[in-house]
């Protein structure tokens, strides 16, 4: 699970976003130790594509998303967005570039300022950048609110706590859309919502993606959600990428033992489906003292001596299917037959 390596990256000219060897470290107090939140990952997203980023809590998914936004700036590595290098940009250029990508957060209520009117929150990006005249701004805000299914009239006089979680997430989406970005980083946008509302918000994201020609980076721990929305999925473990593949390919034939374990943890709401369990023990190791070699070797059912000594690089094992494992699962041993949804 080392997952260092850039073999899975496609030609730089096609990519809207290209992240190379991204490293994010946080100091642990004044101990001189550091949390290796993200340790050299590479990703790319083509225009119009949806990249799913999955992994368990604390594996660095959200940190990756924020490092792409340069909030905070990564420790090292390169982030190319729309052909421009973000990591070396100065303050004002950076502020400008950030408007082309936006972020939606996990907690819909915390992502809206409780003391402001919803309409002002959605208009804020336009106000910051002084876009258009007052009436043009009003029109645009009304239009976007309408598109995400929020009544502009009500938004004008209500505060966020007067809306439900799902509605708040819609408002967040509206706010991210008014600047007309080319990419949206969704940081677990539905994990705080009820399942019924999740579907609505996901459908809305799909619709808007089509209408605005958006590119999405979709961060989640819910594999079922990611499967339906993503074109390509990257699996992360402890700050590294283990496996990258097209969504269907990954779920059909996971090659990394961690992906395998992860997929087998999806509950199947049908008792007649035989589930091949791949048990896993213990907790992920501390990112302050990550294991040597492959970071998954301490918990991997197939770990051998080599795994703790040598870090595996991402390599291609199938068409567009990359894995960072010395001894990948053979023959696409899918733990669960995840039936392809009818859509």
């Amino acid at each position: 699970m080392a997952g260092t390596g850039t073999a899975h990256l496609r030609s730089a000219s096609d990519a809207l976003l290209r992240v190379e060897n991204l490293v994010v470290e946080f100091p642990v107090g004044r101990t001189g130790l550091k949390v290796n939140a993200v340790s050299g990952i590479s990703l790319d997203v083509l225009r119009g594509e949806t990249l799913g980023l999955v992994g368990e809590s604390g594996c660095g998914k959200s940190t990756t998303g924020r490092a792409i936004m340069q909030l905070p700036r990564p420790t090292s590595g390169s982030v190319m967005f729309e052909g421009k290098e973000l990591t070396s940009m100065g303050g004002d250029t950076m502020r400008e570039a950030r408007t082309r990508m936006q972020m939606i957060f996990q907690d819909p209520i915390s992502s809206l300022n409780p003391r402001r009117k919803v309409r002002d929150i959605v208009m804020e990006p336009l106000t910051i950048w002084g876009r258009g005249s007052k009436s043009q701004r009003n029109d645009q805000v009304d239009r976007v609110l309408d598109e995400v299914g929020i009544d502009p009239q009500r938004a004008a006089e209500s505060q966020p706590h007067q809306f439900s979680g799902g509605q708040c997430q819609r408002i967040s989406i509206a706010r991210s859309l008014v600047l007309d970005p080319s990419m949206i980083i969704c940081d677990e946008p539905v994990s705080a919502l009820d399942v019924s509302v999740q579907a609505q918000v996901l459908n809305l994201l799909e619709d808007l993606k089509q209408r605005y020609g958006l590119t999405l980076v979709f961060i989640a721990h819910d594999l079922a959600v990611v499967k339906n929305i993503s074109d390509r999925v990257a699996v992360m473990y402890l700050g590294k990428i283990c496996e990258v593949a097209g969504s269907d390919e990954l779920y059909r034939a996971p090659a990394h033992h961690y992906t395998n374990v992860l997929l087998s943890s999806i509950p199947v709401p049908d008792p007649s489906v035989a589930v091949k369990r791949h048990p896993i023990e213990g907790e992920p190791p501390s990112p302050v003292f990550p294991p040597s070699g492959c970071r998954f070797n301490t918990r991997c059912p197939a770990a051998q001596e080599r795994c703790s000594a040598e870090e595996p690089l991402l390599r291609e094992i199938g068409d567009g299917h990359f894995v960072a494992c010395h001894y990948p699962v053979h023959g696409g041993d899918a733990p669960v037959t995840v039936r392809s949804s009818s859509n």
Partner: protein
Amino acid sequence: MTLTIESPPVADPASAPDTPARTQRRRPRIGMWFGITWLGGLVFCIVFASVLPFIRLYDTKIRVGGKAGRYNLGPGWTAWLGTDSSSHDVFARCIYGARVTLTVGVLSTVIGLVVGGLLGIASGYFQGWTDRVGSIITDSLLALPPLLLALLLVYRMDDLKDVYSWLGWLDRQWEITLTLGILAIAPFARIARAQTIALRDREFVLAARSLGAKSGRVIAREILPNLIPAMLTVAVTGLGILVAAEGALAFLGLGVERPLTWGKMISDGQRDLARAWWATIFPCLFLFLTVISFNLIGDQLARRFDIREAAI
């Protein structure tokens, strides 16, 4: 054979669980209303002291049988709260004293709130070196005994006034106000800093930054509105403390000489406490009721904003 079915007493489900909650909520409200009434009445009297018929001028002497005498009247109809050593009406002097006391209290709170608030917000938001410098300032202010610092500051300002002629505006009242304001900086800064740190990691702040808002805008639009309830609550309680502190300084002889303050009245009257208790006790009572009013209102505000914070 008759069969009587006694229905067990059924507690009214609507009222039963409500009762404790209602009393719990109502008790502090009485306190708050008392506080508002007291302060409202006081402010009304202060503002209209010169036109209200029942308030004498603070230096009007009450003569009994043509003569002014020391403590010639106890509390009664003529002078509600008695007269003091110079046969002034204690009630009138309490009202006029409130003028200075409350002005000093409010202005010093504003100084503390603005300076301390800005310091705290800067420390909490920018962290790093700004925070270190800010923390050193607040910690130093908190490390000194407040009374000692106040005495030093007032005397030092007296000296400075003699040296620099442009400090002529700095009368005793301003000296006390500035001193109390400086003492109030540290607590306000601490609270503002803690609140800012809690807010700056909220996602709406991150969202504003990702929209390209500059630090100043993030502070003004996202952080400040969320700080106001907490700071307001602290300010009201702090006002009570500062009013009491002004009394303490006046008692130590650092009061505002003219016209007068409650602290000065207490310090003047206490020598003759045995002979004329009213000249001391009534200013004390005014001070006590005013401070407790601020505290009761502050408590109620805290409760109210807590509930709102939790609901959000």
